[in-house]
C-alpha cells in the first residue's frame, strides 16, 4: 500500500462504509455487536483507545495511574473537549457514564466486564478533570476496562447520556446526521472536535444483512470499505487488484474445549494427544490464508506484551500423540461429538479437527448448531456451549487476556465449558491479574502457559487477524479488532 504521506489529503468528500446491520438498538450501554460498535465509534470516544498494536493511546483521558496495590486508579481528563451539543466534557460526565454502566439496575452490557472489578458508585470525581476509580480487587490492566476495549464505555454527557439515541451526543470527530434502522447511518464532520479536524465531510454507513453483499458492494464500487471481512468469506477480495486488505493483529480466537470431567477427556494425555494432531502452520496458512497467528494452547497470544515467548511452541507430532494415547489406555481411539456454532470458519475448523484426530483413531461426529441454539440459555444444563463434551466457541478480541483467563478457565468462571478446575491455575490467574508491571505479569503468564500446555483443557491453535478491506487508495483508516473504526484521518 501507498505510504501515508505520498499524497496530501484533500479535505471533503464522503466515505461510504459497509457494515452488518446492528443487531439491536444503538444505546451505548447495550450495544454488543460489530454493527453497533462501528456505528457508535463514529461519534463516540473513550477515555483511552486500544490501538491496533494493543497499546493504550490517550483519548479523552490524558494520563492514568494506579495506587500501590492496583486497587485505586486515577485518570486525568483532557481539557477543552466539547460535546456535539457544545457543552464541555468534565469529570461529572465521566463519573455519570461509568456509574451508569456499573449499575446492575440498568442492565448494561458492561456488567460482565465490570463484575468483580468495578461496582456501581465506585467512581468518584476528584476535580473537574480528575476521576478516581476504586476497584473490587487489584487489577494491573484496569485502564483497558475503560478503553475502547470495553466498547460500552463511550463517554456521554451526564445529563443527555441516558437518552443517547435521541440525538447521539458524544465527543467524536463526526456528529450524528441521520440513522435509519436496518438501512444506514450518516454523519457529518464535527467542527468543534478537540483534535485534528476530520478530513472527509461525511461518513455514510450502509447496513447489510450479511458479509457477502458487503463484498459485492465493495467490488461493485458502492462502498469504500468493509470494516470486518472474515477471511474465509472474503477470499474473493484477497486477489482483487482494486481492493486493499488491512490486516491487524487481534487476540480473537476459537476455543476448542474438552470437558476434563467427562470421558474420553478425563485424562490430560488424551487432551494433549489431540492437541498434537493439529498442523497449526497449515491451519494458519491454509484455512486462514495466512491471516492469523499460531496459538500455543493458552490465551496468551503472541501479541500480548505479557506473553512469555520462550515457552516452546506445541507442534504436530503424531508419534508422540499415539504414545500418549497408548499410555492413557486408548490405543483403539475414542468416539466423541464435537459441537459448535455455525459462525465464521468454525464448521470448517471442526472438519479439520475431525480429519486431524482420525490419525490417532479419534472418531469425531460433528454437530453444527445455529448460534442461538449453541449458546442456549447460557447457563449450565441449558446450553450446548457449556454442556458439550467437546465444542468450539468463538471469542472476540480482548486487549488484555484477563477475561480469557478467568471466565472460560477459572474454576468459578461462568463460561467454563471445559469444566476445568485447577486451584493452582486459579491462583496463578489471580496473581497475574493483580500484577501491576509487565515483568510480574510475564512471570505469571509463563507459569500459566506451561500449566495449560500440560493440562490442555482448551485448544488455542490460532488467533485470527482483524481483516478490513478498502478500495485501493483509501488511506488513514484505523480499524480496531474490537470493531471501532476511526475514519477522521482517512482519505483517498
Amino acid at each position, binding site marked *: 500500500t501507498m505510504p501515508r504521506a505520498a499524497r496530501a489529503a484533500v479535505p471533503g468528500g464522503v466515505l461510504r462504509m459497509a457494515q452488518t446491520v446492528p443487531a439491536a438498538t444503538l444505546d451505548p450501554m447495550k450495544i454488543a455487536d460489530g454493527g453497533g460498535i462501528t456505528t457508535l465509534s463514529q461519534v463516540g470516544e473513550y477515555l483511552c483507545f486500544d490501538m491496533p498494536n494493543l497499546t493504550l493511546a490517550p483519548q479523552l483521558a490524558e494520563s492514568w495511574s494506579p495506587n500501590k496495590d492496583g486497587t485505586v486508579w486515577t485518570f486525568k481528563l483532557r481539557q477543552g473537549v466539547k460535546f456535539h451539543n457544545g457543552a464541555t466534557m468534565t469529570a461529572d460526565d465521566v463519573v455519570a457514564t461509568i456509574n451508569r454502566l456499573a449499575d446492575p439496575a440498568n442492565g448494561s452490557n458492561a456488567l460482565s466486564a465490570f463484575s468483580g472489578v468495578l461496582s456501581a458508585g465506585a467512581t468518584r470525581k476528584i476535580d473537574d478533570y480528575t476521576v478516581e476509580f476504586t476497584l473490587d480487587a487489584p487489577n494491573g490492566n484496569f485502564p483497558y476496562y475503560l478503553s475502547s476495549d470495553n466498547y460500552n464505555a463511550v463517554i456521554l454527557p451526564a445529563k443527555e447520556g441516558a437518552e443517547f439515541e435521541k440525538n447521539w451526543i458524544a465527543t467524536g470527530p463526526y456528529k450524528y446526521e441521520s440513522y435509519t434502522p436496518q438501512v444506514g447511518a450518516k454523519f457529518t464532520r464535527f467542527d468543534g472536535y478537540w483534535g485534528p479536524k476530520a478530513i472527509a465531510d461525511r461518513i455514510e454507513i450502509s447496513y447489510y444483512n450479511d*458479509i*457477502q453483499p458487503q*463484498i*459485492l458492494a465493495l*467490488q461493485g464500487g458502492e462502498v469504500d470499505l468493509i470494516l470486518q471481512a472474515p477471511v*474465509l*468469506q*472474503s*477470499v*474473493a*477480495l*484477497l*486477489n*482483487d487488484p482494486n481492493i486493499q486488505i488491512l490486516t491487524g493483529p487481534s487476540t480473537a480466537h476459537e476455543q476448542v474445549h474438552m470437558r476434563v470431567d467427562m470421558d474420553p477427556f478425563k485424562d490430560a494425555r488424551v487432551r494433549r494427544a489431540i492437541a498434537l494432531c493439529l*498442523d497449526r502452520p*497449515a*491451519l494458519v*496458512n*491454509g*484455512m486462514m*490464508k495466512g491471516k492469523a497467528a499460531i496459538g500455543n494452547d493458552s490465551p496468551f497470544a503472541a501479541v500480548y506484551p505479557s506473553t512469555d515467548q520462550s515457552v516452546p511452541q506445541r507442534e504436530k507430532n503424531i508419534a508422540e500423540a499415539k504414545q500418549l494415547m497408548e499410555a492413557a489406555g486408548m490405543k483403539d481411539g475414542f468416539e466423541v461429538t464435537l459441537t459448535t456454532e*455455525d459462525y465464521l470458519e468454525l*464448521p*470448517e475448523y*471442526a*472438519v*479439520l479437527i*475431525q*480429519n486431524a484426530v482420525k490419525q490417532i483413531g479419534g472418531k469425531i461426529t*460433528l454437530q*453444527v*448448531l*445455529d448460534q*442461538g*441454539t449453541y449458546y442456549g440459555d447460557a447457563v449450565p444444563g441449558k446450553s450446548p456451549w457449556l454442556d458439550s463434551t467437546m465444542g468450539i466457541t468463538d471469542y472476540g478480541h480482548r486487549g488484555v487476556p484477563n477475561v480469557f483467563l478467568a471466565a472460560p478457565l477459572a474454576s468459578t468462571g461462568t463460561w467454563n465449558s471445559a469444566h476445568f478446575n485447577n486451584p493452582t491455575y486459579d491462583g496463578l490467574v489471580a496473581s497475574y491479574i493483580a500484577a501491576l508491571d509487565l515483568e510480574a505479569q510475564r512471570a505469571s503468564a509463563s507459569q500459566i502457559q506451561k500449566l495449560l500446555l500440560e493440562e490442555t483443557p482448551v485448544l488455542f491453535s490460532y488467533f485470527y487477524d482483524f481483516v478490513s478491506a478498502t478500495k485501493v487508495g483509501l488511506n488513514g483508516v484505523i480499524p480496531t479488532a474490537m470493531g471501532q473504526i476511526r475514519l477522521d484521518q482517512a482519505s483517498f
Partner: protein
Amino acid sequence: MSDAPLPLVASDGGAAARERRERLRVLLRSPTFLVGAAIILFWVFCALFGEAVVPLDPYADDMMNYLMPPSAEHWFGTDQLGRDVFSRVIVGSRDILTVAPLATLISTLAGAALGLVMGYYRGWADEILSRVIDAMLALPTIVIALLALVALGTSTITVVLVIGFTFAPIIAKTVRAAVLAEREVEYVAAAELRRESGLYVMFIEILPNVAAPILVEATIRLGYAIFAVATLSFIGFGIQPPSPDWGLSISTNYGLLTGGYWWTVLFDSLAIASLVVAVNLVADAMQAALHD
C-alpha cells in the same frame, strides 16, 4: 337369453390391460420421463454409493491446495479447505435426497389421511380444518418453514418435519378435493349400503381411486421439497455444516464468485437445477400419461 359365450371384454381383446401397458409404454417412451428418471437415478446412485465411487475423499482436506481451479486431478477444482469439489458434488446429493423424500413421505401420508377424512366425513371438522389450511396456504412455504424452524431450531430432523408438515395441508387440500368428487361416485353409496365402516370406505374403496393423483401430487411435492430444502440451506436454515450439501455449499461459497472461484458454486448449482428439473419432468410426464 343367449348362452353363447360372451366375449370377455368390451370391444377389443384385453383392451384395458393393454391400455394400462400402453400407458406405461407411453410413459417409458416419453423423452421427458426418460431424461428425468435417468437424472434422478443418477443422483440416487450417487447418494447411495457416491462415497465408494468418487475419485477422492470428499471430506479430506488439503489445506495448502485450497481453491484450485479445475484440473486433471480435481475435475471440478478444490474448495476453501482444498477438498475435491467433484467428489463433494457427487456425495452432496445424499442429504437432500434423504431430507426431501422423507419430508415428502410425511406430507403425503399426513396429507392423504387428512384429506381422506376431511373429504369423506365433511361436516364441521372439515370446515374448521379447511379454514386453517387456507390460512396456512396464505403464507409462502419458505415463510412457514422459517417460522417453524426459528421456533423449533434447525436440524435435519426439524427440517424434515417442518417441510413435511408444511406441505401436508397442500396435499390434504388436493386429496380432499379428489375425495369430495370420489365420494359422490356411486360405488361409495354401494359400500355404505353394505354397511362398510368409514375406515374401510376411505382406505379400501376410495384411496386406490385417488392414488394416482396423490402419486402425481407427491412427485410434484418432492420437486418442491428439494426446492425448499435447497433454499433453506442457502439461507442457513436447512441442512447444517459440515455436510457437502449443495445448497449449503452454495451458501458458503457464493461470495467467492466475484473472486473468480466460480467452480465452487457452479457445479452445485447445476446439480440442484438438474435434480429439481428431473423430478418435475417425471411428475409432468406422469401427469400427462394419466390425463392422456
